[in-house]
C-alpha cells in the first residue's frame, strides 16, 4: 500500500447539518452538526456490540500514518443489511469515510456515516 498517495487524508470540513441531530443517538459523544471526510485504508474491524469499530490508517501531508478509531453501527444492524466484516474491511484499497468527530477532544475518534470504496460502491450507515 502506498501511504504517500493518501497524503492529506483528512480532506475537508464538509458541511453543517443541524437536521442530522434529529435521529442521532450519539450526541453526547460526537459532533453531529458537522462532518469531515477521511481517506485511508481500513486495517481491521472489531465485530462487536453494542457498536462495531473500524481502524482506518490515514496519512498526513508528511506521510505520517495515524490510526483512527471509527465507531459504527451494531453488528446486528450490519448483518440485517447483509454486511459482513470482510465486506466492511474491503480489499485494502483506499476508502473515503464520512464521519462525525469526537466531542471529547480525541483527534482520532469518530462515528462513521458512510464509507465509499475505491470502485465507487458505498455503505451508508447514518443520515448524511
Amino acid at each position: 500500500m502506498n501511504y504517500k498517495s493518501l497524503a492529506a487524508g483528512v480532506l475537508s470540513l464538509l458541511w453543517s447539518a443541524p437536521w442530522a441531530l434529529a435521529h442521532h443517538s450519539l450526541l453526547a459523544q460526537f459532533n453531529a452538526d458537522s462532518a469531515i471526510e477521511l481517506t485511508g485504508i481500513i486495517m481491521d474491524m472489531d465485530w462487536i456490540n453494542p457498536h462495531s469499530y473500524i481502524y482506518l490508517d490515514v496519512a498526513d501531508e508528511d506521510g505520517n500514518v495515524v490510526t483512527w478509531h471509527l465507531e459504527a453501527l451494531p453488528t446486528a444492524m450490519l448483518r440485517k443489511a447483509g454486511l459482513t466484516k470482510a465486506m466492511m474491511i474491503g480489499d485494502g484499497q483506499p476508502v473515503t469515510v464520512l464521519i462525525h468527530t469526537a466531542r471529547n477532544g480525541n483527534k482520532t475518534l469518530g462515528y462513521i456515516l458512510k464509507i465509499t470504496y475505491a470502485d465507487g460502491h458505498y455503505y451508508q450507515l447514518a443520515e448524511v
Partner: protein
Amino acid sequence: MNNFRHAQAKASRGAGTLAAALWILLLHTTATAADDAVTPRASDGHPDLSGTWDNGAGIDFVKPVQIGASICVRGCAQNPQPSQRGDRPTYQPEFVASVKDLEERQVQEDTVLRCFAPGVPRIGPPDKIVQTPNEIIFLYDDYAGNFFRIVPVDGRPHRTDVEPGFLGDAIGWWEDDTLVVESINFNDQTWLTDDGSFHTTNLRVIERIRRDGETLEWLATAYDPEVLQEPWQLRPRIAHLTDQEIVEAPPCIERDLDQMVDDTHHDNVR
C-alpha cells in the same frame, strides 16, 4: 461548489425518486405475496409460529436498501423513518419525578447501555421461534447478546424455584389462533423504555402473538399497578418471515460511556 452541490442534489433527487418508486413497488409486491401466504398449522392444529422473524434488528425501522453494489442501512430517503418517541408508559403522579430523574441520568443508569439483557417487553418480538406442542422457545439475537425464553403451553404454572431475572418467567396458552404469553418474576434492573421508565419486581407482561401467513404480529402490555397509572400497551410490532438465520451474537463490549462529555440522551429503543 454551489453549482456542484446543486447538480448533485438534482441528480440525487432523480435517483431518489426512481429508487423510492422501486422501493414502493417492492413493498407492494412483498405485501401482496405475504397476504397470499397460507398460515401453516402445527400437528395440534394451532398456527405454527416456528421460523426466523425479521423485526428490523430489534428496531423495526432498520430496513436496509440495496442500490446496485451499495447498501444504505440507515439515513437514506428510501429507508423507513424511525418510530417517533411518545410510546411511553404513564406513571402515578408520585413517581413522575423519579422517571424524570432517571431519564436525565440515562447514560449512567440504563443497564442496556452496559450490555445487560434489555428485559421484557423492551427486548421486542423474538427473532426466532421454535414451537413444540408442550412449549414454545423464543430466541433473541440482541445487541446485548443471545437470549432465550422457554414458554410452556401445556398448563404448567409459573416456576417458583428461580430467582427474579431480566426476562422473567413465562407461561403461555392459546386463545383461538393467538399465542398469549404471561411473564412475571422480573428483577427491577431493567426499564420498559430508554427514558427512565422503571418498573418494580411485580411487573407482569402479557404478549399476544399472531401469525398471518409470513407476517407475525406482536402486541405487548405491561402491568405494574404499584407505579404505573394504567397498563401500558406498546405500539404493535410486525415481523416478517426471513431466511436470514440468526447467528451467535458477537461479544457486547461497552466502549462509549467513557467518551461521553455530558448526559445527553443515548437512544436505545427496541
